[in-house]
């Protein structure tokens, strides 16, 4: 069967080795200014006990080597800048470059976290204003920017729930987690010292109220849920869900990973949620950077405010301060005050959009996801007919009948020039294909994506073998992950 896509020709940028393989003794990529104090003999200063001979194996390369090497490496990555990156639940929206510029200003980029408060007013103000905006956006009462990522936010929230319950004489053992939840949810439950109790979703992929009624009792600390859920569906019964949990003395944690469907349209604080986290690297445009850094602030209702991680950023008489005097705080989840640099970027994003822009972004995100869903549903199976919000989930059931699965379709999508959707998540959908276009994808891009998936569906019908061996156009073809795990090689050796 003829190739539908022409293979790219071999090119020197595709054959770059490891930086260690470029190394040659005597090369260096950075020059230091001359030492302006007396030199110190290392032998005298450190003695034989502490003095190191050298760092064996460390590379010696020039600046040109470094630029060339990493530039070549970069060309092997797909990125948001290159086109649609429809990873469901990751909210791969455009990362504004203005954010990068303001984050690099002297002051925000250079102030030490122990800078005396009187000299750190700019940084404290950025933290304070970001927190204020997030309080308003979530409809909660207070925010801590300390957690470094969503998973940390989850743990922080669970620890606060626990502190509250224990102070009120409720020593509970379990936390209910829906089977559609992201893996970090049950993992966080375990660290908080609770046991995760699985809750089967109903036929619509949502919280089963009867099952919740049976599961929620005086041994349960609360419920962790995502809304919209990991299928991209809004939990219409959310108020009832929260009431049910509260009625039996529990609290509700909301995983805010899907806030891109809600900003400016609805506020979790009004649903009955007690605590939630946000992902600044999803909803608030901070860059993903190949896998991080993120930032996972937590937002809480008043009842949980005393337990926030310390210190807390406060304003009094026009000046900002760090309040360490927080006797009921759960403690610290990381050193310093959080991923400050991400707060800078998130604040820039919020201010750039303003109230109308934020709402519009949400509307566009939901519109885009629904457009994609509508234009693909004749060829790919929709496991649930509940309306999608900012992401839609298909199943590979029709294609699986021809022996082609979600992972294979994803690999073939690469040949068409797109990053795949999220493969095989959530677990409650067999062969899940989770698509989240975000609001920054234009119609032309979406149409090209839709056409690609339509074409692949046809390929699956006509020549499934061909799809199974994709991708054909990448620098490397499918990598043997099983072999890699059996005999792990995790570093270069000379």
């Amino acid at each position, binding site marked *: 069967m003829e190739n539908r896509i022409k293979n790219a020709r071999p090119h020197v940028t595709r054959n770059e080795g490891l930086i260690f393989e470029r190394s040659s003794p005597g090369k260096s990529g950075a020059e230091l200014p001359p030492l302006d104090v007396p030199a110190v003999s290392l032998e005298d200063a450190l003695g034989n006990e502490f003095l190191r001979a050298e760092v064996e194996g460390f590379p010696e390369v020039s600046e040109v080597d470094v630029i060339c090497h990493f530039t070549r490496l970069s060309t092997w990555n797909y990125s948001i800048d290159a086109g649609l990156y429809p990873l469901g639940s990751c909210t791969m929206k455009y990362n504004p470059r203005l954010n990068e510029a303001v984050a690099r200003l002297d002051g925000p980029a250079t102030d030490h976290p122990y800078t005396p408060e009187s000299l750190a007013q700019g940084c404290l103000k950025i933290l304070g204003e970001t927190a204020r905006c997030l309080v308003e956006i979530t409809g909660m009462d207070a925010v801590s920017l300390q957690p470094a990522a969503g998973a940390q936010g989850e743990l922080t929230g669970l620890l606060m729930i626990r502190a509250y319950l224990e102070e009120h004489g409720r020593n509970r053992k379990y936390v209910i987690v829906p089977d559609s939840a992201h893996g970090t949810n049950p993992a966080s439950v375990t660290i908080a010292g609770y046991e995760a109790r699985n809750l089967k979703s109903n036929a619509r992929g949502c919280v089963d109220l009867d099952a919740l009624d049976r599961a929620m009792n005086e041994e349960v600390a609360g419920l962790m849920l995502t809304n919209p859920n990991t299928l991209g569906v*809004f939990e219409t019964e959310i108020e009832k869900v929260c009431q049910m949990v509260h009625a039996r003395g529990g609290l509700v944690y909301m995983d805010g990973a899907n806030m891109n469907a809600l900003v400016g349209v609805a506020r979790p604080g009004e649903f009955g949620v007690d605590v939630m986290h946000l992902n600044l690297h999803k909803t608030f445009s901070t860059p993903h950077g*190949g896998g991080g850094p993120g930032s996972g602030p937590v937002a809480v209702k008043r009842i949980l405010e005393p337990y926030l991680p310390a210190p807390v950023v406060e304003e009094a008489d026009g000046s900002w301060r760090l309040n360490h005097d927080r006797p009921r705080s759960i403690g610290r989840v990381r050193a310093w005050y959080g991923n400050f640099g991400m707060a800078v970027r998130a604040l820039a994003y919020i201010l750039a959009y303003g109230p109308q822009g934020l709402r519009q972004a949400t509307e566009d995100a939901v519109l885009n996801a629904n457009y994609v869903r509508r234009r693909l549903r004749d060829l790919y199976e929709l496991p649930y007919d509940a309306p999608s919000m900012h992401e839609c989930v298909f199943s590979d059931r029709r294609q699986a009948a021809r022996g082609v699965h979600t992972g294979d379709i994803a690999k073939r999508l690469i040949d068409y020039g797109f990053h795949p959707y999220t493969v095989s998540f959530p677990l409650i959908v067999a062969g899940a294909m989770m698509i989240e276009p975000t609001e920054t994808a234009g119609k032309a891009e979406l149409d090209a994506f839709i056409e690609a998936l339509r074409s692949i569906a046809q390929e699956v019908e006509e020549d499934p073998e061909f799809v199974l061996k994709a991708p054909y156009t990448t620098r490397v073809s499918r990598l043997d992950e099983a072999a890699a795990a059996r005999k792990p090689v995790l570093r270069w050796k000379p």
Partner: protein
Amino acid sequence: MLEATGHTSIDELFSQIPEALRLQRGLKVPGPLSEPELVEFFRQAASQSARDYVSLLGAGAYSHYRPVVIDTLLSRGEFLTSYTPYQAEISQGNLQAMFEFQTLIAQLTGMEVANSSLYDGSTATNEAVLMALRLMRRKRVVWARTLHPEYRRVVETYLQHQGVELVEVPYAATGQIDRERLEAAMNRETAAVVVQSPNFFGVLERVHEIAAIAHRAGALMIVTVTEPLSLAIVKAPEEADIVCGEAQSFGVPVAFGGPYVGFLATREKFIRQMPGRLVGQAQDTEGRRGYVLTLATREQHIRREKATSNICTSQSLFALSATIYLCLLGKKGLRALAEQNLAKARYAAGQLCQVAATELPFSGPTFNEFVVKTPGDADELLEELRQRKIIGGLNLVRFYPELENHLLVCVTETVSRAAVDRLVEAWRYFAVAKETLVGG
């Protein structure tokens, strides 16, 4: 487009949200601001900062010069705007860079393997402790009082419901952990001993001796390094079982505390209990070398509640910064830089202890940080220095009540001799004024 979705209004797209829960007003947030207005907003904030001051603060976050090329490369959209390398074929750039990061960290720490980053040094230390608890199936940890106070607080927070006993060992006159007290604190229930080197006072710990004590009791040895530049001239803690810490010194901005980049390295036999993402070498169908995320069965998306950690997002972009930085400096450059730091700090310490009523209380060897006892009230001295646009260091009393009037002073290559001389001059002026007061 709306038509194509089968709806007649945008509102219909949100029909799943009950009417009562839909916001009927605009959000009360500022904006929208145009680009020039935004820049002005942040410039205003930046003007209220310590950017015109000489800073002698270290204590876990270090000011080193960041070569321009780091941002040049980091700004490439292919690095900045890509995500976790779930699809290996189109993420080889990130995967290979992380493989290089893992290699560099292993080389620097003297360990066999390293992961591709954790959030920061404090959480990396926490993960190391959790790892040791899992490996040893014991419930007790012995740690040094000279381990960064905020790092200890993080571990306490994570362990508060796990029934683990945390035992603190004080420091000796050298500023290093008191070995006798450490010996006495060990028992068969101890999973690990944790020290920091250089420690919070800037003093190098005698890792081989501490490791011997730990191993004799059947416990693991964890060393956390907040200033890994020291490892260019200080022996790697090879006797340790886990070496973790903070790589912010390597090209990551100080940025008021984050984002930073934690690292964790260990021996091959412990691989399956390591937290965080691991990048491994692999072959494609044509036998070409490539890289993949590997051993994912440890992680939350597979093991869920039984995962080694709940970590998902790590710090890839800053692991990349560290990789680029280390490659630029290279074997010789990093050593030269470390030598400069040592020389600058020794110069400052040497000059300061010649001032009246000023002493260096700890006799152990230091790298680029040291503790000084001040001639009079430390806060008053700091205020004096601030008048001269110098942030003189960290007043230790906030973390160590027994150390009133002691400052932790850090001198990196970014502090000029002239600045040190100004510091000493101001210090001397303050000391003399105090003397006169006391004398008169």
